[in-house]
């Protein structure tokens, strides 16, 4: 037999289901709104996908408890790609062809997102990605949007802070992992725009346990006024410790990649004085009441911690923003029709989310500016917001 036995059974089941659907058609014509989500819930990127899934489930339950969108319940269909772009592509096709979703909020990593984009462009269904890279929205793709800030913005935020302090000559030490490499390239690209000159560059492997040789070289380079470390994981913590060990007397800038309490714990005393850009969500309780984002970040982090018992992460926040942008677009469009919702997503203006204030346009499918980042400095083992 050419097909395994489950195939025929599924065909029969599907036929039966559709027969029932047809029978019940009048009642369901304005039935559920189907929202798809392909996320990396397990696997190496589970630190992204897991909070994203929990967040989406939380907000969907919440919306449904309050009567849904336009009086219709939202049905969330989640698939786990385990971080594998091939699996993501397969699930994307399934969402579009079998589940017939009218929008998607998902794509935890840049790899899975890029693999899924062609499917959504072909099917003409809006896709709000939760991944970081700037390639997702540049060049602009008609049906693709994203909520997280980009590496480029992190570099720009850091350079902006340096410029304010009259720092123009810097050293850079970057991890050779995907995150470190991509951010390093973006930083090199925009450094000129801020009049920053990178005098010396070093790198380290994602698993290295000692970076003193590289930092010694940076220390010995005359004229370095600050050091920037694009990286992720334990590398930046070791760089920070080695930085103190060598008593290098210039400011150290870390990236948003280490914006978590865990970093302070790992780097210990050495983290004192380190500066980094981070989303407002991370410092929800420290934002001044006048901050427009204060309300949303405090509410989201309270709801998330209560429901899951876990500390809030910016990644869950991206999923929250993606869902809310889609929800508001559906409400404005007064339908879940894919094309109309897409147009409304593109018209999103002044949406205040956990990641910043979103103003989309036909040429900007992310809609964030540098105010999405807060510049933080670590003092007494805690974040402080640098004005």
């Amino acid at each position, binding site marked *: 037999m050419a097909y395994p036995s489950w195939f025929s059974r599924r065909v029969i089941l599907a036929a039966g289901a559709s027969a029932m659907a047809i029978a019940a058609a009048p009642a369901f014509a304005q039935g559920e709104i189907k929202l798809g989500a392909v996320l990396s819930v397990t696997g190496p990127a589970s630190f992204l996908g897991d909070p994203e899934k929990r967040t989406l489930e939380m907000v969907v339950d919440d919306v449904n408890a309050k009567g849904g969108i336009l009086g219709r319940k939202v049905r969330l269909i989640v698939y786990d790609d385990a971080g594998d772009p091939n699996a993501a592509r397969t699930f994307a096709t399934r969402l579009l062809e079998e589940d017939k979703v009218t929008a998607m909020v998902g794509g935890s990593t840049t790899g899975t997102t890029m693999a899924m984009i062609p499917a959504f462009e072909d099917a003409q269904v809006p896709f709000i990605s939760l991944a970081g890279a700037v390639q997702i929205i540049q060049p602009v793709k008609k049906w693709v949007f994203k909520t997280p800030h980009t590496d480029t913005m992190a570099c720009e935020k850091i350079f902006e802070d340096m410029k304010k302090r009259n720092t123009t000559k810097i050293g850079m030490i970057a991890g050779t992992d995907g995150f470190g490499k991509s951010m390093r390239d973006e930083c090199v690209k925009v450094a000129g725009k801020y009049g920053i000159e990178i005098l010396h560059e070093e790198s380290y492997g994602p698993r290295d346990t*000692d970076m003193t040789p590289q930092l010694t070289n940076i220390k010995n380079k005359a004229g370095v006024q600050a050091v920037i470390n694009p990286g992720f994981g334990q590398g930046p913590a070791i760089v920070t410790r080695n930085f103190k060990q060598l008593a290098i007397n210039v400011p150290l800038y870390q990236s948003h990649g280490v914006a978590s309490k865990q970093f302070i714990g790992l780097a210990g005393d050495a983290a004192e004085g380190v500066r980094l850009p981070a989303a407002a969500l991370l410092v929800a309780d420290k934002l001044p009441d006048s901050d427009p984002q204060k309300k949303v970040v405090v509410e989201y982090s309270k709801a998330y911690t209560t429901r899951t018992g876990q500390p809030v992460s910016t990644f869950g926040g991206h999923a929250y923003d993606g869902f809310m942008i889609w929800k508001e677009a559906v409400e404005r469009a007064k339908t879940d029709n894919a094309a109309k919702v897409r147009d409304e997503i593109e018209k999103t203006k002044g949406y205040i989310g956990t990641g910043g204030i979103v103003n989309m346009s036909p040429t900007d499918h992310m809609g964030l500016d540098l105010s999405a980042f807060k510049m933080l400095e670590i003092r007494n083992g805690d974040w402080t917001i640098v004005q």
Partner: protein
Amino acid sequence: MPELLQFAFSGLTVGAVYALVALGFTLIYNASDVVNFAQGEFVMLGGMVTVFLHLAGVPLPIAAALAIFATVLVGLALYAFAIDPARGSSAVTVIIITIGASIFLRGVAQVIFDKRFHALPHWFGSEPIRFGGAAILPQSLVVLAGAAIIVALIFVIIDRTILGRAILATAANRLAARLVGIPVRKIVALSFALSAAIGAVAGILVTPITLTSYDVGTLLALKGFAAAMLGGMGSAVGAVVGGILLGLAESFGAGLISSKYKDAIAFLIILATLFLRPQGLFGKKSVERV
């Protein structure tokens, strides 16, 4: 000049870590001709169990002792459930089993502990000792001292006790060893227990410097293996010298040539050793036993 001294300090620190891992390889190899690729996981377990017991409120010295004990149990279990049932298979088969065991241990650690990085406090504070314009952490000296003590212990055990003779005899010829009344299986089990203990001690000593997580074992095992090859498989002194040479080569390579090729250095050294001196610096020429 201070930068050269700094590179040397860095190389010594990293090298001492490699040396401790290489030492763990040595014992099991001596007793059973097997390269135990789960050695890195022993290092991971030593560090992670200590971290989690310490987080649970257990005082550090007791947490460390319990971690060594737990790792020894894992080592014995590894022998009893994976290695012993395969006795009589070729060394290559058993080596492949150890690779499987290392993947298994990593998976279990990921579930039991978590996927995050953890640190332990430095024993004598994190204030570096400054010397000639360079800085070294007191903990690096602890790691070096630990390596020295373990080498001395292994030397005494192997060369000066009946037990050590029994280990050597087992390695030389299992059948003959059994015929003269050596409990061969117990001896091999013991070598796994000892290696696990050495691995756990290494993990506890280095975690304040290198941090730890469920998957630190893989790269440590590779680097430790390179160090053991360089020094000569089966030689305790060779393991330490190989580890420190490898660490120095990496740090001088990163400092003087380019940090981009740092990880390649270990593998170049393995290749060079295999081509030029397959028995390693301190190894005896391998003789095919018939």
